[in-house]
Each structure stands twice: as structure tokens, then as C-alpha cells.
């Protein structure tokens, strides 16, 4: 899993959300990921990066994007979105469709989870939030 140097995109405004998903798509294209999967990945990133602008302290955080390789030589795009915002009190609720504290539809986290192959979230009250997504290219 030796990662290439991750690309870091500071998320400070809604324009950065667009930048993050475009960069990830560029890596997905490099891996010749099918176009549908590129779109699923880009949409998932949009959801988790928006959570930073909506919920984190002052709406700041960062997204790290890199290409990873698993034991079988399969490659994929990994996206880590992290912020040092207030964290999530009730993770189970936050991962439930339709639950929101931000005035949205409550599809962000549960929706993003459905769009990618691997999804992990580390959070707690006062601890910030780190969301990791992986979308494998269908190879290897």
C-alpha cells in the first residue's frame, strides 16, 4: 500500500469542493477507471468535502487524494477528507439516510458510502472528523 505522494487540497470555500472532485477524477482517468465509477467517486467526494464547508470549524479542512495499490496489485483512488471541527456526536445517526443537522437532505455520508468501494469514518465529539474513501479501478 505504499502510496504515491498524496495531493493535498485545502477546503476553505465551495470552489475547493469542485477542485477536489476534479483532481480525483484526473487520477481516476489515469487509472482508466470506467466513466461511471469516476462519476460515483467524484460525487462521493463532493458530499464529504461539503461536510467540511458546512459543519467544520469555520468550514475549513483538507482533502488528500492519492493512488493506492492493494496486495493483489489492484489500484484505486483513495480520498481522505479531514477537519478539526466539532466531530459527530452520533455516528450511527449520521450514517442514516435522511438524518441531518445541517439543513440538507441527510444523504451526504450514507450516500457517499454507497458510491464507493471502501468507506471509513473516524470521529467523536470535539475530535474532528476523518473520512476515508477508496474506489478501486476494475483491474488487477
Amino acid at each position, binding site marked *: 500500500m505504499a502510496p504515491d505522494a498524496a495531493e493535498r487540497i485545502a477546503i476553505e470555500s465551495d470552489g475547493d469542493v469542485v477542485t477536489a472532485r476534479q483532481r480525483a477524477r484526473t487520477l481516476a482517468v489515469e487509472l482508466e477507471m470506467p466513466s461511471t465509477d469516476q*462519476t460515483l467517486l467524484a*460525487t462521493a467526494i*463532493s458530499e464529504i468535502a*461539503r461536510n467540511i464547508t458546512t459543519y467544520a470549524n469555520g468550514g475549513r479542512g483538507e482533502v488528500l487524494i492519492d493512488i493506492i495499490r492493494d496486495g493483489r496489485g489492484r489500484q484505486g483512488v483513495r480520498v481522505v477528507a479531514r477537519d478539526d471541527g466539532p466531530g459527530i456526536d452520533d455516528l450511527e445517526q449520521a450514517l442514516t*439516510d435522511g438524518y441531518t443537522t445541517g439543513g*440538507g437532505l441527510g*444523504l451526504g455520508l450514507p*450516500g*457517499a458510502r454507497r458510491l464507493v468501494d471502501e468507506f471509513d469514518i473516524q470521529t467523536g465529539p470535539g475530535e474532528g472528523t476523518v473520512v476515508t474513501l477508496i474506489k478501486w479501478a476494475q483491474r488487477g
Partner: protein
Amino acid sequence: MAVPILKQGPFLIASIQSALTDTDVLQLRDDVMTQVTRHRSRGIIVDVTSLDVMDSFVSRSLRGIAMMTRLRGAETVIVGIQPEVAFAMVQLGMSFEDVQTALDLEEGLALLQAGELGA
């Protein structure tokens, strides 16, 4: 980047040219409402052909535009949702059940014109 809105007879056509930030989407909503009032438009087409991502915020905002314009007596049709985008929207859990959609601009105009005749 602001979305250009063209007037075509009783209809407005908002043609999205590039990726939208959340700010752009809210601007589009305000611009559509202003133009509908100014031109007394009966229908609006929002062309999303160039969008490669429609996340929950964009989807919710477009649906909001459709609901708001309907309250002003104008129907909105969303046209040009790309196949991959449609797939992602369904996976995400977004539905456009109460919003009219059409394959492309031509079909969208036909839908609005049929609505005018039927009215």
C-alpha cells in the same frame, strides 16, 4: 461562473456551462426567479448536459427551483442529465419524482409547448 439565461418566447433557457459551486447554484436560483417575474415566463428549461456531477446539494437546489417557479405559475424541466450522473444520483438516494425531466433541450421545449397547448 454565472449561468446564462436566455429568453425564448414564453420560456427561459438556463444553460449550465461548467461545474457549479454552491454559490453559483444559489445565484442561478435567484436569477431564475427574477427573470421569471420580469418576463412573465411560463416555463423554464435548465440544461445540465455539461454537469459531470450532480451531488445532493445541486439536486436539492434544482428541485427547489422547480418548486419555486411552479408556485409562480411556471413549469421547470431539467434536461440533459448524463447517464453516469443519473446512475450516481440514484445510488446517492436522490430522486426527482416531482420534477419534470427530458432527454435534451429539444425534448424539453416540446414538453413545455405541449403543456401550453394543454393548459
